[in-house]
């Protein structure tokens, strides 16, 4: 990437229920974290790119830029997008174009303030026709799982293994979250618990297969590579950030078993970053459900379509915390993923980038990958809606 943008600092709040806090308190906390880390102050910011998926609906708050301006006494250009990756992508373009050299990228969501209506909002925003037909935020995950099982003819013992594999995804993410002080659920769960929850809900996916609703904020400071080198000694470079789009309406899509948008975004991301996919070992996946994490492994090309469950099942027997696919160790959602870290929509992508940056810098503390694994780059996948948009970011310690 020409004029490669660099992340000089990341910050975030704990995800979870922040009943007592105004939305602006959360973004302030995330920003201060990043600011402290790199010494960049608000007066240094030339622009802000903020994401929130539906703050105007949950908190009746329009013109989010205004409250940021009040908070920071900044009058610089500010733009709002609906996902953190979208904000980061726009910010990267501005840096690459040479318009700015220091910008803030932030994300915020306050979902618990509207907990009683949140599932209606989520489904209506995901796809109105599915909502009108009686859909819930969970149904498409369950339908995709059924489509997958049918397409690949998984039955009998294999079907049981697939169900265990999906449970293992949640178990692994919860284990990772126990080492993440910012995670919403810092406790372990068992495969039996996941399966029991499915049985009691009488469905293929249960409570422990889905990410929660959360409040939280995340932020990062993005600079040009030139400025980055002067500011910190370990900047992380955005080697590529790409996206692709698909229909709102899941039933109308051609492929009901995979996310076309993810496949397209990944293809472009690899082309732009010129990263060898064989070296990808560190990934933050968008596990709104365990099914989404499984399918995403295939969509990103980490394994052959229809086989992810097998690899997960085989490699998760002793809770080693990684998937072994074709002899290669793949670490996904080391922060606990959306499942256990939390999923405040507009801020989620920021927490994913936060984790990749910390891992690449070697600052992930207890969560740091084993010392024999020193990845040069990491990848983050963020999805909007149910696969309506996919963003793939590839971050690296170095850039060419």
């Amino acid at each position, binding site marked *: 990437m020409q004029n490669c943008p660099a992340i000089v600092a990341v910050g975030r709040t704990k995800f979870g229920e922040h009943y007592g806090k105004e939305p602006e308190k959360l973004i302030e906390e995330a920003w201060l974290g990043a600011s402290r880390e790199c010494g960049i102050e608000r007066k240094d910011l030339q622009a802000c790119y903020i994401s929130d998926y539906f703050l105007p609906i949950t908190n009746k708050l329009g013109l989010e830029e205004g409250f940021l301006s009040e908070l920071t006494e900044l009058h610089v250009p500010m733009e709002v997008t609906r996902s953190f990756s979208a904000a980061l992508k726009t910010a990267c373009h501005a840096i690459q174009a040479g318009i700015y050299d220091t910008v803030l990228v932030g994300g915020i969501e306050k979902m618990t303030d509207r907990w009683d209506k949140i*599932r209606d909002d989520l489904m209506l925003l995901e*796809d109105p026709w599915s909502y*009108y*037909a009686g859909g819930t935020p969970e149904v498409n995950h369950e339908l995709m799982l059924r489509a997958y099982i*049918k397409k690949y003819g998984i039955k009998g013992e294999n079907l049981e293994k697939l169900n265990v594999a999906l449970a293992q995804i949640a178990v692994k993410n919860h284990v990772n979250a126990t080492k993440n002080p910012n995670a919403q659920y810092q406790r372990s769960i068992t495969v039996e618990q996941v399966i029991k929850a499915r049985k009691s809900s*009488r*469905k293929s996916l249960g409570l422990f297969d889905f990410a929660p609703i959360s409040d939280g904020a995340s932020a990062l400071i993005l600079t040009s590579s030139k400025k980055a080198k002067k500011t910190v000694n370990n900047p992380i470079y955005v080697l590529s950030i790409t996206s692709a789009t698909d229909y709102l309406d899941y039933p109308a899509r051609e492929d009901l078993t995979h996310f076309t948008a993810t496949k397209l975004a990944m293809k472009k991301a690899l082309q732009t970053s010129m990263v060898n996919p064989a070296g990808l070992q560190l990934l933050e996946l968008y596990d709104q459900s365990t099914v989404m994490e499984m399918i995403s492994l295939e969509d990103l090309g980490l394994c052959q379509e229809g086989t992810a469950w097998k690899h997960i099942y085989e490699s998760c027997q002793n809770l080693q915390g990684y998937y072994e696919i074709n002899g290669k160790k793949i670490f996904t959602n080391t922060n606990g993923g959306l499942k256990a870290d939390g999923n405040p929509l507009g801020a989620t992508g920021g927490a994913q980038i936060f984790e990749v940056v910390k891992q690449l810098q070697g600052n992930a503390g207890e969560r740091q990958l084993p010392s024999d694994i020193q990845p040069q780059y990491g990848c983050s996948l963020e999805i909007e809606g149910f696969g309506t948009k996919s963003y793939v970011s590839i971050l690296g310690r170095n850039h060419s």
Partner: protein
Amino acid sequence: MSSEPIERRVSYLGDRLKISRCTICGKEYFEVRDYCSNCGRKSYEKMALADLFFDKGTLELCTLVNEPTNKFTKLESYVYGVISFHNGKIRVPGRLTDQIIKDDKPLDLTSLEGKEVVPRFRRRYMVNKSDVIPTISLAFTFADEYYPHQEYKVIHPTKEYKLPGIVGYGVYSSSFRIQEGGIERAVPYIDEDSMTAAVESGKLALIHAGVDSACVGKVYVGSESNPYAVKPIASKVAQVLKLGKEDEDTQSVDAVDTEFACKAATSMFKDAAALVNYPNTDVEYTMVIGSDNSQAAPRGCPGGELDLFVGYGGAAFLFGKKDVIAEIEGWYSCTSDTPDFWRRDGEPFPMHGGRFTGDPAYFKHVRKAAVKLMDKLHLKPSDINYFVPHQPNPAFPTKVAKDIGFKEEQYKSALIVNKFGNTYSGCSPMGLAAVLDVAKPEELILVVSYGSGAGSDSYVLRTTSQLLEKRERQKMTVRYQAENPHIKYVDYTTYRRLKLGM
């Protein structure tokens, strides 16, 4: 909170499941589109509009919803999935309706996938009582259950009659029943009401008559349980059934609701027939629908005695002069101001004058209308093949028939109250339909309605030979619905819950 423009747009597309097809590449889209996304600009003005209203689909994938979003909570649990039409060329989301899913029984989703489903016209979801009622046809039932798939084919008429008459009809009732006191009564599913039954019965009448819906010039809907105090059911029927020629998003048709307790529909038979007989008119056909989710206060409350007999259903009749199945030989109506049953504005349930509803009300008017018409046409009870009285309960019609001098074989085919309950405005029309289902050509039918308040309409109809030809086109006969193996029986508590609706 609801938005009327959004509700209307969703209804406009969703009530009939409108689709667009590119005539260049054949790709199909749910909703109305001016362009094909494959063919781009060259497809402009080459998109064919169609809909899935009379189609059948396949349930491709499904899952259970038992924690619905807020607007669907009254449906409790339901199966939701992906439904494909036209061999998978078009796929839509949908929920299965008419299901009460028990928590203790295992649900085998795999056995449901691959089955054929039929779109049903239903309420979309719950709204506040003061809001516009949203509707949709993304509700489905299995084609091999109560409601079969029937093709709608327009058939060119072969014979023109001198006088107008009935050219087709349809009866709709739900698949739920309550069994009490030796009778069965139809119970709507929770997403049904008098409006959805009016549309469904009209749809069945179009299928039976084989009439082009664009040739229908006026629709009358009689009901005493319109969920709106102001806003016609008839406008919904006209739009959803595409009655009259379509001109942009309006229909060239007159539509009106009528109200006179249980005779709101039969009163309009003569008007509907007269209109098609008007010289130099382009009104080829008219439609009269009687439809009710018959209201009654809970048992033990004032007016609660009605709760023993109320049913749910609708019947639609098409009138015209071509391919008539029953000619109207004559009619008689009588009216008096007799307050035997009423519902004040804003009250949810009607009140009932107890024994006053018998002699001075029902018996007096029904007897007079029957006898006067037979006198007028110089007929004796023995000349009549079938007598169809209004049926508020099982005892009244039998008593009045005997009083007038009819034998059991003359009125038993018409007795539907034992199977569906009193369907108010739909009651004597459903009885008439039950007779037309079994009558032979050249037979005489005397139908006498009764509306509280009070009045009666009587008609003498003579069946034609075309009655038999058209009979094959209708699977949803009254008997089919009365004796259907897929009927689901509910208890009193469930009946009250379903009847109150969403």
